[in-house]
């Protein structure tokens, strides 16, 4: 068994709709508390996971599929995996974007997390992996 498989793992599933983002953040708060994380890292995780989910919601189309959030805890890291059935959208390619700063989601994830990974799932869909270290509670980025 890998270390991850033997460690606490929780699964949370919602519809890929923006109204569900609040529920996702309550799940992140619970998991962060279980892992012993404190502010400002709890906030960082809520933002990063929300941005990943919002991205999934954006490309989910008119019939939103399921959005799955899995939390994995090891001694060293708290990790969230966000799995959806759509394809990660390249912001610049979408001419219909109403707001200019819509592409901030991914840069924010990178700024706030210790590790960010995006991969395409076999059979369609995207997996975003967001990880913070449990060893230091300091923020990953210094403000300008």
């Amino acid at each position: 068994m890998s270390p991850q498989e033997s460690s606490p793992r929780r699964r949370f599933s919602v519809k890929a709709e923006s109204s569900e983002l609040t529920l996702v953040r309550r799940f992140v708060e619970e998991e962060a508390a279980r892992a012993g994380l404190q502010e400002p890292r709890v906030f960082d995780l809520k933002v990063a996971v929300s941005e990943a989910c919002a991205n999934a919601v954006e490309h989910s189309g008119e019939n939103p599929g399921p959005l799955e959030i899995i939390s994995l805890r090891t001694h060293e890291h708290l990790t969230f995996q966000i799995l959806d059935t759509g394809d990660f959208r390249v912001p610049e390619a979408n001419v219909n974007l109403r707001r200019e700063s819509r592409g901030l989601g991914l840069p924010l994830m990178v700024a706030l997390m210790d590790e960010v990974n995006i991969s395409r799932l076999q059979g369609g869909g995207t997996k975003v992996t967001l990880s913070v270290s449990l060893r230091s509670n300091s923020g990953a980025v210094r403000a300008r």
Partner: protein
Amino acid sequence: MDIATTTLSGVPLVEVSGEIDHASSEPFERSISAVLAEDDRIVLIDVSEVTYLDSGGISVLVTAVRRVRHSGWVGVVGANPNVKRLIEIVGLSVDHGLRMFPDRTAAVEAVDGFSSE
């Protein structure tokens, strides 16, 4: 998210509370547009009761800054440390079109000073 609009020292003030994310950014943006007249140079946004903000809320601030920055600024009042840090990370805090104030007293001083400039 809850929103109320009023005026403070003669300029529009938007009081917003709760969580501003991708679901609540549209009503937030509408309320700012509704109070911001064509010739307004300043708009104050009191975020002291805002517990969460992400790029959904940031995009609304950017839109507001773009509207007034040629002749004025957006005043963000009472941001908690997390909200303040996010505004700093995206670089908005160094834009001359956005000013941050710890409280309304400080915001009013800046508004009154700006009006008499």
